């Protein structure tokens, strides 16, 4: 996409996060959408493009009462919203629509109005992975990590440290689900979910939603909020089967998506003030830091252990809302990572990074199946 041509002018999460038993999934979409529209000072008639995942965009348009001229239902898992932002930018630039609403809502904990979530036994994952006792992400997303450890010399202490540091960020965020500080010992001694991962190294399961509104950078100046400009975007996919991921120590989708976004943005890693890496499990920041080029292969464990991503002086503040491990995780967490990048660039985050101007937001979909990267800035770069 054309760098700096598009801006986020509305951004909000659902009013509540966590356990929301009185709202169906589609209503979580709507609650977040209405909050984002109010944030941007827009009404339903102003929205002419919609994008969503986990829910049909038809359902969304009908439920909200929107008549779009552009629709995107790209659904590649938790990073779908990064892809929606990228596609929306292209669509606005092409004149297909002027104002795009991207929504997420997921009744991940309460399961209210949520569709079935089960693969077909005749799909390739169903045939060749389905009968080995997998219990969803906890036993598939985690499989590559023992190989990563052996390849890189990364330790279980370093894995635990990811959860420890992110809890430090969460402790500063009143909306975070888990705010109590923890330690490497406590994380490692927590209940084993799928060896080598303990409960503290697996994401939360909560209810919530979020929405974004995008328009041209030219129009963005007339909105009530600080525009957040889209300066670089990337996306890719690899495989729906974790067993077929080419290299268990590096994600091809991460590399392709990240490189595309950095190339579009024309920035250096040193320019980045703030980073979000989708953390469904504690090893994901290692892959993100390395595959996006912030660390050399195998060095991310030590980078986090040395507090480079921690509050109070870390050179690269990472997952500053507390992340999927401590803030919230509804199932498709990518939207919350984008929301935190927007807050940091608006200067309204709970754990605000001083003078944050440039934020990289990197998402994963499925189990290393897909990826989307959005680079944002609060001034034209």
């Amino acid at each position, binding site marked *: 996409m054309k760098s700096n041509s598009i801006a986020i002018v509305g951004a909000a999460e659902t009013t509540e996060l966590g356990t929301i038993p009185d709202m169906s999934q589609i209503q979580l979409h709507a609650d977040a959408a209405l909050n984002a529209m109010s944030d941007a000072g827009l009404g339903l008639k102003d929205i002419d493009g919609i994008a969503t995942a986990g829910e049909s965009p038809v359902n969304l348009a009908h439920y909200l009462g929107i008549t779009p001229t552009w629709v995107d239902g790209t659904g590649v898992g938790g990073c779908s919203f990064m892809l929606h932002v990228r596609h929306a930018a292209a669509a606005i630039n092409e004149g297909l629509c002027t104002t795009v609403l991207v929504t997420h809502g997921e009744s991940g904990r309460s399961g209210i109005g949520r569709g079935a979530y089960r693969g*077909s*036994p*005749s799909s*390739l994952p*169903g*045939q*060749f*992975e*389905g*009968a*080995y*006792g*997998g*219990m969803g992400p*906890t*036993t*598939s997303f*985690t*499989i*590559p*990590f*023992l*190989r990563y450890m*052996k390849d890189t010399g990364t330790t279980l202490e370093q894995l635990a440290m990811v959860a420890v540091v992110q809890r430090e960020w969460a402790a500063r965020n009143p909306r975070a689900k888990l705010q109590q500080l923890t330690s490497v010992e406590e994380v490692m001694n927590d*209940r*084993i*979910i*799928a*060896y*080598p*991962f303990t409960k503290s190294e697996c994401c939360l399961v909560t209810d919530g939603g979020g929405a974004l509104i995008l328009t041209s950078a030219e129009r963005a100046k007339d909105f009530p909020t600080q525009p957040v400009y889209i300066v670089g975007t990337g996306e890719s996919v690899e495989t729906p*089967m*974790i*067993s*077929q991921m080419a290299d*268990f120590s590096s994600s091809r989708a991460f590399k392709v998506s990240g490189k595309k976004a950095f190339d579009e943005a024309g920035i250096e890693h040193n320019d980045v003030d703030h980073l979000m890496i989708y953390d469904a499990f504690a090893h994901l920041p290692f892959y993100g830091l390395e595959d996006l080029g912030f660390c050399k292969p195998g060095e991310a464990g030590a980078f986090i252990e040395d507090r480079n991503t921690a509050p109070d002086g870390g050179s690269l503040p990472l997952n500053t809302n507390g992340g999927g491990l401590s803030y919230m995780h509804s199932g498709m967490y990518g939207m919350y990572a984008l929301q935190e990048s927007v807050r940091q660039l608006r200067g309204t985050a709970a754990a605000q990074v001083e003078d944050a101007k440039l934020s990289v937001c990197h998402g994963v979909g499925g189990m290393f199946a897909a990826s989307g990267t959005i680079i944002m800035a609060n001034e034209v770069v």
Partner: protein
Amino acid sequence: MADKSKLPVPQPTPETQHFWDATKAGELKLQKCEDCSHIYFPPRPFCPKCASKSVKVFSASGEATLYSYVINHRPHPAFDGPYSIAVVTLKEGPRMMTNIINCEQTPERLRLDMSLRVVFEDLSQDIALPYFEPMEASS
């Protein structure tokens, strides 16, 4: 007690039927491109490296090494106690998911890169699943 009927049974498609016919007969089949020699899995009637439709099915050695795994500790009706979910690298190159069986399900016994061989067990009347066991255990 472990109840294997609690596992979803793979449903073959026209492109994969030969693989499941073979596992039922106690053989592991792979495919090889006759144009670029690429050996691949899962089955499909063309080469995912060069798109050639000139591909053949052949019997794999059944030998493999342990690439990576987790030990699931959450209770599952088809398993007694914690069990491994693993990905193995076949001697011929492709990787596949499996359970490592006939082996203590501990990090001490499940060593990365250990040598394994395929074994088949019936999951239903029509479907036998490929599992892997340590070479050394039964030799």
